């Protein structure tokens, strides 16, 4: 999946499920959209669906430090690449 497709999917999730209004790729998720650690855990469940596999504990822990949508995209790309056979 290329970054543009991924970006579209993540933006759809953030606007539809997390009620983001006009999200910017470098917005601070917490300060600009009230996105907290419980939201992050919910989002991880959706990322698992996109990736088609479960995330490890370490991967989930790493995700809790994410601050922007670009960080989310980087995070997914790194994990997808690391799991490639």
């Amino acid at each position, binding site marked *: 999946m290329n970054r543009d497709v991924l970006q579209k999917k993540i933006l759809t999730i953030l606007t539809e499920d997390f*009620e983001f209004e006009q999200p910017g790729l470098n917005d601070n998720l917490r300060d600009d959209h*009230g996105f*907290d*650690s*419980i*939201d*992050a*855990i*919910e989002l991880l*469940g959706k990322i698992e669906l996109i990736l088609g596999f479960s995330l490890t*504990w370490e991967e*989930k*822990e790493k995700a*809790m*430090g994410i601050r922007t949508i670009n960080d989310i995209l980087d995070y997914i790309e790194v994990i997808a690449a690391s799991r490639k056979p």
Partner: protein
Amino acid sequence: MKVDRFLDFLVTILCWAWFILGFFLFFSWLYLGVALFAKNKEASFQRLNSRFYRVFFYLLRVTALRHKWEIDQEVAAIRSAVIVCNHLSYLDPLLLIALFARHRTIVKTRFFSMPVFGWIIRKSGYFPASGEGRFTKMMLAQMQTMESFFQDGGNLFVFPEGARSRDGRVGDLHKGALKIARLCKAPIYVLQLAQTDKLFPPGRFLFQSRLKNSITLKIIDRIEPDYQEDTPSTAMLEQRLRDAFSVRVP
């Protein structure tokens, strides 16, 4: 008047004595035993917390006789739900712990660093109010077991207004519990607690044991969304909660 203050002082000292001596003499070894040997440590810690505060409220009831307690029986029967309640006094969380043997709640992060209390709330599976920094692991671990906690009949209770209300108006609502309800597809019960602040007013050290008062706890709304067909947004749940709190039953 002086007699009243003296009696208030005695009741307050008795309650503090239970908190300190009751804990060290009767409960500390139970907590230790559970920490070492219990199969389900978290549930056992929660039950001990509940018993500890039941004794506390028993002492309050028999020493502050002018305060009548009217707790709706339906409240104590709630299981597998997110419970949200208005917040008036420091007594409120203790009352809900006493009512629900299997419970979790959300606690300010600074309490997790306190010596004995911090250990107990960690072992009890309570949530840190923030999942930032060193609380990330704890938040992830608690969330991972949240669905099975609800399946076991546990309740997550919270005071979404955060701080105790001094004027009875609805403050800013914290949405964490609503997000958890949505994520775990749990029903939400809205409770109204009244007059605990007459017994233990905010900012005061002494209980007002001689005041004639009626403390009530009742269900004012049940939010049971159809999560399969139409999961409500957090904003919708928040509005429903705000409406329920705004119409507080007299």
